[in-house]
């Protein structure tokens, strides 16, 4: 200790003998991290909203199916799910499809990571959507139906608009998680930010790992914080004047 030679300019050094610079690797990593997280989030929000809604409908088959979905995707560790999609699924598919996945599917690591992370997160989003719907009174649903809305219309115009407003705080955490959880995709070889960090500090060892790790941590922090601010803005914009919420303020 005390002997550590700080050198923050390390990321501007050339990767020995490649003509590339370390900062370029980090930018590539950042690109994959953002792309994976955003694609996974779009998928998670769409599927999670649908599944969460279905868990609350009166039809036992539909709600049972939605419950099974949630339990499947939230009871298996994310990293195991990615391994299953990446290594196991191609073996279980018919030969032609399996071979296509292994050899011809474009950007296999990215597609697997985005879908795998999206499905994992969708189960969590579904539970939040269900929570939002269940906090509303039966009277709201009855009022929608009494106006002549069909059940889907009652969800669309009455229940979901309030449910989503109510769950913005936990959804914010989930949106932030999707960026942080995308780091797990390094396990299937996606060259996202953490993969690049390990590559720089490990194999190519520029001898200044603390700086590189610090820089990567700060990048994650900025990403998550930006999401947080964006969601806070949405929360403010969608606030209902005069609506009395439970605790606080």
């Amino acid at each position: 200790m005390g002997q550590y030679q700080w050198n923050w300019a390390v990321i501007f050094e050339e990767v020995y003998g490649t003509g590339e610079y370390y900062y370029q690797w980090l930018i590539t990593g950042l690109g994959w991290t953002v792309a994976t997280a955003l694609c996974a989030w779009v998928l998670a929000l769409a599927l999670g909203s649908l599944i969460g809604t279905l868990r609350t409908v009166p039809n036992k088959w539909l709600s049972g199916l939605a419950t099974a979905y949630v339990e499947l995707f939230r009871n298996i560790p994310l990293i195991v799910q990615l391994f299953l999609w990446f290594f196991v699924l191609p073996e279980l598919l018919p030969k032609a499809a399996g071979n296509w996945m292994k050899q011809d599917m474009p950007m296999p690591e990215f597609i697997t990571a985005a879908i795998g992370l999206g499905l994992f997160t969708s189960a969590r989003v579904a539970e939040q959507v269900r929570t939002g719907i269940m906090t509303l009174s039966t009277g709201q649903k009855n009022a929608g139906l009494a106006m002549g809305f069909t059940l889907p219309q009652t969800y669309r115009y009455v229940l979901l608009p309030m449910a989503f407003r109510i769950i913005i705080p936990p959804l914010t955490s989930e949106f932030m998680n999707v960026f942080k959880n995308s780091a797990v995709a390094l396990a299937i070889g996606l060259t996202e930010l953490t993969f690049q960090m390990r590559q720089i500090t490990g194999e190519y060892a520029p001898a200044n790992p603390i700086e590189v790790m610090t820089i990567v941590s700060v990048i994650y922090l900025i990403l998550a914080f930006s999401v947080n601010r964006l969601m806070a803005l949405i929360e403010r914009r969608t606030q209902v004047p005069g609506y009395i919420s439970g605790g606080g303020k």
Partner: protein
Amino acid sequence: MISIKNVSKWYGNFQVLTDCTTEVKKGEVVVVCGPSGSGKSTLIKTVNALEPFQKGDIIVDGISIADPKTNLPKLRSRVGMVFQHFELFPHLTITDNLAIAQQKVLGRTREEALDKGLKLLDRVGLKAHAAKFPGQLSGGQQQRVAIARALAMDPIVMLFDEPTSALDPEMVNEVLDVMVQLAQEGMTMMCVTHEMGFARKVASRVIFMDKGKIEEDCSKEEFFGQPRGERAQQFLSKILQH
């Protein structure tokens, strides 16, 4: 207009409605009263199929509620309902609360819906509040909007489920005034309420329920004069004591 025929309903083993039979004719105002837990709110909710029932049938304007082929949303769009807790849609302005079902259910244009909605809002004396949200109005004002919202659908009958029991005392009258006016204009109404003054003023008939059964079903003169059952007498003497 409404014909309730031998309706029975159970929650598991517990029977909440027992063989209820009554009728609401066109232009009639029928007040349903009874002690807490007597099944009156459940009964009125069976009329627009918000509460399912296991036995009997209800015919609304010639259409059977129990018939699985009945288009319930369509039927409900013709039956106005006002709830104890108002149930305005909190994320929509008063204007949109009045317009949304007209547009999405009846297929009216935005202009038609706004025109109709604002006329009704004016009628309940709240035109100045059109741009506000429900949470910015008092309970009495919200309930008047809720009545206007139901009327905007041009209902053939109006159901009221304890419309004043969640209100502060000084707001009860502003809501009752609107209801009396409606009754006097000839609207067919079924009202679950404890407002005996309202019943005396406009009711055609009074139904008294106890333990899921219709115990009295008679003209208001008869009901307030000398109800036949002991339970109804007890009930009346309790609520008219002060």
